[in-house]
């Protein structure tokens, strides 16, 4: 799990870490930044991939699967997270269900859509106020350690967690790496 020579794109690292942690169910609401990750998940037979109508469903499916013995992760963008406070505060937090979310951060560093820029500001205060573990990844080198650690902690402590992918990770050109 420690291989990181700088050549592996972040989405490939994520897939590797998901497999190492036996996370084989993925629910997502589409997002352009996550497109390569989503495409790769769809083509990999290891994963069951479900794209429901709304983020709340995506969370509930993974919550139900966890209780039935299967590990999952939910992918979305910031505006999708903004639809979730009730489901998080009334389902995954009080029932102590380790739903891991991966959220691509829109609304900062070059955003062109004012709605995204505004709704983005609600994300961390919501996470803070319901006491949800969250961390933002900005550095490519940090991807394996942070994703692995947050997944392991979530399942070990029966706590939901949000892994936020900053544009510094997903949009910034990397020296020496093919983009």
């Amino acid at each position, binding site marked *: 799990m420690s291989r990181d020579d700088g050549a592996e794109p972040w989405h490939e690292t994520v897939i590797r870490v998901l497999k190492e942690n036996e996370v084989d169910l993925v629910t997502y609401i589409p997002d352009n930044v996550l497109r390569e990750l989503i495409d790769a998940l769809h083509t990999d037979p290891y994963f069951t991939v479900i794209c429901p*109508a709304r983020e709340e469903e995506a969370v*509930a499916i993974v*919550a139900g699967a966890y*209780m*039935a013995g299967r590990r999952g992760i939910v992918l979305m963008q910031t505006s999708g997270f903004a639809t979730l406070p009730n489901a998080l505060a009334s389902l995954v937090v*009080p*029932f*102590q269900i380790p739903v891991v979310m991966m959220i691509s951060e829109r609304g900062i560093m070059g955003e062109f859509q004012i709605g995204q820029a505004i709704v983005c500001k609600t994300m961390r205060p919501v996470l803070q106020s319901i006491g949800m573990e969250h961390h933002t990844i900005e550095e490519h080198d940090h991807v394996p350690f942070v994703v692995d650690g947050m997944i392991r902690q979530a399942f070990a402590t029966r706590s939901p967690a949000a892994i936020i992918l900053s544009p510094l990770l997903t949009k910034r050109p990397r020296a020496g790496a093919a983009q």
Partner: protein
Amino acid sequence: MTTISNTERGAAKVMNRTDLTRRLVARLQKDEAVVGGIGHTNWDLWASGQRPQNFYMLGSMGLAAPIALGVAVAQPDRMVFALEGDGSLLMQVGALATIATVEPANLCVIVWDNEAFHITGGQKSLTATGADIVAMARGAGLTNSTWAADEAHFESLVDEVLGGTTGPRLIAARIDMTKPAGTTDRDPVKIRLNFMSGIAPPDKEG
């Protein structure tokens, strides 16, 4: 077996949720999972006997069917029921299309339709003014969706599900405004742990 397969909503008998919930539970012999939606739906499930295979949802209105879908995907060999009210289902109606797309053979959504938000004071829901849940479910791709004509028909529909009918299905029942027969003890972690041990796969613990 009753074979009224295309009962229209207007022709369906108005029944009682407590009675129908008990009729359902009485027919469960194989540790089938039952996810009870918010409010009176899961209160009546609670009152029907606290099976360890029952999950009682305390908030997150509309998410009983998606939770049940997650259970069904994780354990394809176990039959899973979701119980929802009309107001709850309409709040997350896209879930019908999700279920139709994923197409789990082991999932049945049962909808209690009393045309009202009963627990908050009986305000009319959208089914009171014409929304037909079975028609919506069929439109979403759940072709195997049916109004229960009466109690005997409800039981025959449940028997079909338990008999291994393939494909997800939806059963809707019109119900009256009788209060539920009990109140769920609201202890989320206890509910989760009971449910997880009740449906634990033989080879691993939660």
